[in-house]
């Protein structure tokens, strides 16, 4: 069996390699029939590959063939602007012979908006797969590509995970062009560059790298492009595939690349000099570089009053810290160092734990796992019942657990505060990561007491200090400390104070606005 299999497998591979080579070597034939045959062969005669041979301007000896993918083209444009003029418009013979068929058809006949000449056959296939229409002309070695993309796309809705109260409510959708246009609407600077790439062997996903020339750091842009070109994968279904490949430390629980669905967030970041990566087929846009302090920043900080936003950010920092460290601190105090908390608190803890049959570590672990189960149930349960179940479940289960004497009321409070605090952080990636972080802290604190707790604090700090995002230290601008950059990390200074862009993006154009002279 193996020998024959090998024979057959090799043949399959050989077939595929031959096919690829053929596809690349194929030239655009002068005869329309051959072109159509080639197209059908390359695209494997799928049912949605439509080829149509029509006459050119009513002439009986000149033919033109169209090839497109049904479902990806806008039939209106196809019919009205391409087929109709080609078939019905009379051909001016003199000009036709002067300029050549390709140029004549392109400039005089097709009334579609974007028409280009294509030299290579493989490019024709690419264009067809992207939703354009290819026009083959008899006697011409070049084909014409007409922009007829028009598939059904999702409407522009506010993203659910990043909803805010005040501000723009638009969000990206799965079409690359729509997303790029949304950014264009915010930034009308001529220096806004979009550089396209293709990633993925089978999916050939269109990826666009966007930046504002002069504001962003050229080194970072080059680095992003270099890493994107180095990706070798069969298909890219979501930007997170790309994020895993180009991220500096993909194994760290802290993301070094932001992924967002909000165009105002992308535009604001690009105005600070960051680079955006749009991926066709997903509304998540990646931004590089991404720093730790942005976990606590949300777009509505910039649309609301600056004082209150600063206080809210401080609250988020507190929530971030609590969500990771509170269970560990609780267990360190209760198990080892009971003299480190005020006396009345210790008395309450003691009397609360009186009838509980578990050890403190088992109790809090049990409670945390219970809350995780409730959380998963809330997410995956269909419809709106999911939300109700998780809230009701948490309350009821917590209360009954206390009444049954399984856990002490303190632990219920500690765990609920931890869970709620992990949701207060505006970034969804961060809250996902924070579900897992309290556990190591809990275990180390349960084993080594307050020393273990201090160890976890420092270990986390060292890990964050060692991360970098495309050359920028992850903890900038807290460390290395830069006073001017800190106007927008924890505190959100009023807008007239933020005259300079962050200095960790090394570019020429640093000023956001004209600085006021003293005395005004």
């Amino acid at each position, binding site marked *: 069996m193996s020998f024959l299999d090998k024979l057959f497998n090799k043949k399959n591979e050989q077939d595929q390699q031959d096919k690829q080579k053929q596809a690349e070597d194929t030239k655009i034939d002068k005869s329309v029939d051959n072109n159509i045959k080639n197209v059908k062969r390359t695209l494997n005669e799928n049912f949605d590959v439509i080829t149509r041979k029509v006459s050119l301007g009513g002439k009986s000896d000149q033919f033109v063939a169209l090839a497109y993918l049904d479902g990806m083209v806008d039939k209106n444009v196809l019919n009205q602007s391409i087929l109709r003029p080609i078939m019905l418009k009379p051909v001016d013979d003199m000009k036709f012979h002067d300029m050549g068929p390709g140029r004549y058809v392109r400039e005089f006949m097709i009334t579609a908006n974007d028409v280009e000449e294509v030299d290579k056959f493989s490019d024709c296939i690419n264009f067809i797969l992207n939703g354009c229409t290819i026009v083959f002309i008899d006697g011409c070695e070049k084909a014409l590509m007409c922009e007829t993309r028009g598939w059904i796309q999702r409407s522009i809705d506010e993203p659910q995970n990043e909803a805010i109260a005040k501000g723009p409510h638009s969000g990206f959708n799965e079409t690359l062009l729509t997303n790029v246009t949304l950014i264009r609407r915010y930034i009308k600077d001529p220096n806004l560059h979009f550089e396209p790439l293709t990633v993925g062997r089978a999916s050939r996903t269109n990826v666009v790298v966007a930046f504002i020339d002069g504001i962003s750091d050229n080194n970072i842009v080059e680095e992003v492009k270099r890493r994107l070109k180095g990706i070798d994968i069969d298909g890219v279904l979501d930007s997170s595939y790309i994020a895993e490949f180009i991220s500096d430390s993909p194994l760290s629980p802290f993301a070094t690349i932001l992924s967002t669905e909000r165009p105002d967030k992308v535009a604001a970041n690009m105005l600070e000099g960051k680079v955006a990566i749009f991926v066709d087929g997903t509304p998540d846009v990646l931004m590089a570089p991404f720093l730790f302090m942005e976990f606590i920043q949300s777009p509505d900080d910039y649309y609301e009053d600056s004082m209150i936003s600063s206080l809210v950010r401080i609250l988020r920092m507190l929530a971030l810290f609590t969500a990771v460290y509170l269970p560990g601190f609780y267990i360190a105090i209760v198990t080892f160092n009971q003299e480190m908390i*005020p006396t009345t608190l210790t008395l309450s803890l003691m009397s609360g734990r009186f009838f509980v049959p578990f050890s403190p570590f088992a109790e809090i672990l049990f409670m945390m796992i219970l809350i995780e189960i409730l959380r998963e149930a809330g997410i995956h349960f269909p419809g709106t019942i999911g939300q109700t179940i998780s809230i009701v479940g948490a309350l009821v289960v917590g209360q009954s657990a206390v009444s049954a004497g399984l856990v002490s009321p303190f632990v219920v409070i500690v765990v609920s505060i931890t869970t709620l605090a992990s949701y207060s952080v505006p970034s969804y990636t961060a809250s996902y990561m924070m579900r897992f972080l309290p556990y190591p802290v809990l275990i180390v604190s349960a084993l080594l007491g307050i*020393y273990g707790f*201090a160890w976890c604090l420092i270990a986390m700090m060292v890990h964050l200090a060692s991360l970098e995002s495309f050359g920028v230290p992850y903890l900038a601008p*807290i460390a*290395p400390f830069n006073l001017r950059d800190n106007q927008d990390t924890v505190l959100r200074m009023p807008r007239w104070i933020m005259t300079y862009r962050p200095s960790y993006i090394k570019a020429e154009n640093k000023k956001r606005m004209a600085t006021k002279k003293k005395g005004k």
Partner: protein
Amino acid sequence: MNNTNDTKRACMDTRGYTFLMINTLISLPIFLSPSPTVAVSRQYAWLSVLVGTAQALMVGYVVIKLGLTYPDKTIIEYSQDIVGKFAGKIVGLIFLAVFLSISVMALREFTLPFQGFVSINIPLPTLLIMTMLLVTYAVIRGLKTISICSDVIIQFFIGFILILLILPTKNLNILNIKPIIPHDWGRVVRGSFDSAAFLAEDVIGLMLIPYVSNKDKLMKGNQLAVLLSGIALSAVTAMEIVTMSYERVDSTIFSTFMLLREAQFSSSLERIESIAIAMWGGLVFVKLSVYLYILADGLRQLLGLKDYKPIVYILAPIITYLAVLPRDISEILVFPNKVWVPIIYLAVLIILPVILLLISTIRKQGEKK
């Protein structure tokens, strides 16, 4: 992105260097040194600390002047240029031995609160191994990571100092620190050597100067670091004398922990020594990381190797083993009292850099002619 080759060494700016120095200089003394200083100078201990700061400032001046004559090399490298190959290697070895002893002592003293003060006994090897693991991880990631850690910890430290100076004010008794002008300056000066010896660890600047990117304001940054450390130390000592009288500060080993344990700002905000323990952990961690880094780097330069990472992997277990050796607290305290202050401070930290500076100045002048 963290290179260990010598080509591009700069990984922190002057401000990062200042923060790193403050961190290293102040980590142990702020918890440990009020007690021995008060034992000698009683209620004038805060003045003793200031006198010690003045001495350390002079050391710092010599250090930076010497370091800037060879801005891209560490002392291990250019000591051979100054006094010749053999003597230069001896000088390098002396410095490395000093750094080794400081780091072993710091590691052992780090575990002291967790053994006796906090009422739980974690076995000593566990503490040492866990701490060294963390320190090794930070050192492997490079000096840039260490300086970022020290930036973060300094920002917390500023809050900590404010807490130390504000919270215990309910127990103030100004009488404890009077008279402000001492009647016996001899006491003041005799007590200053302890804090001067701690603050004169400024000599590690000799190993760190090549890693600073912007060397113009380096003298100012270094002196500022020493000065700020000294002032903070003096303020904390004064606060301790004022709230607990000097007799109690004298008898308590970790007087800063005791300060926070007794600070009762309100009936619910009491016993906040867990903040002090977290701060202790952070500060000594940075100090240990810096020392391990300069040890590994110095050894690398002495032996002429390319990469310092294998040296780190060998050094970490050695230091851990050496830290287990002192059996009890009197053996630990022998080192600072009998060895560090009289011998090492005088000989290595003061005399050696001065000699090197003189020789290099003479040589440069000879070359000019």
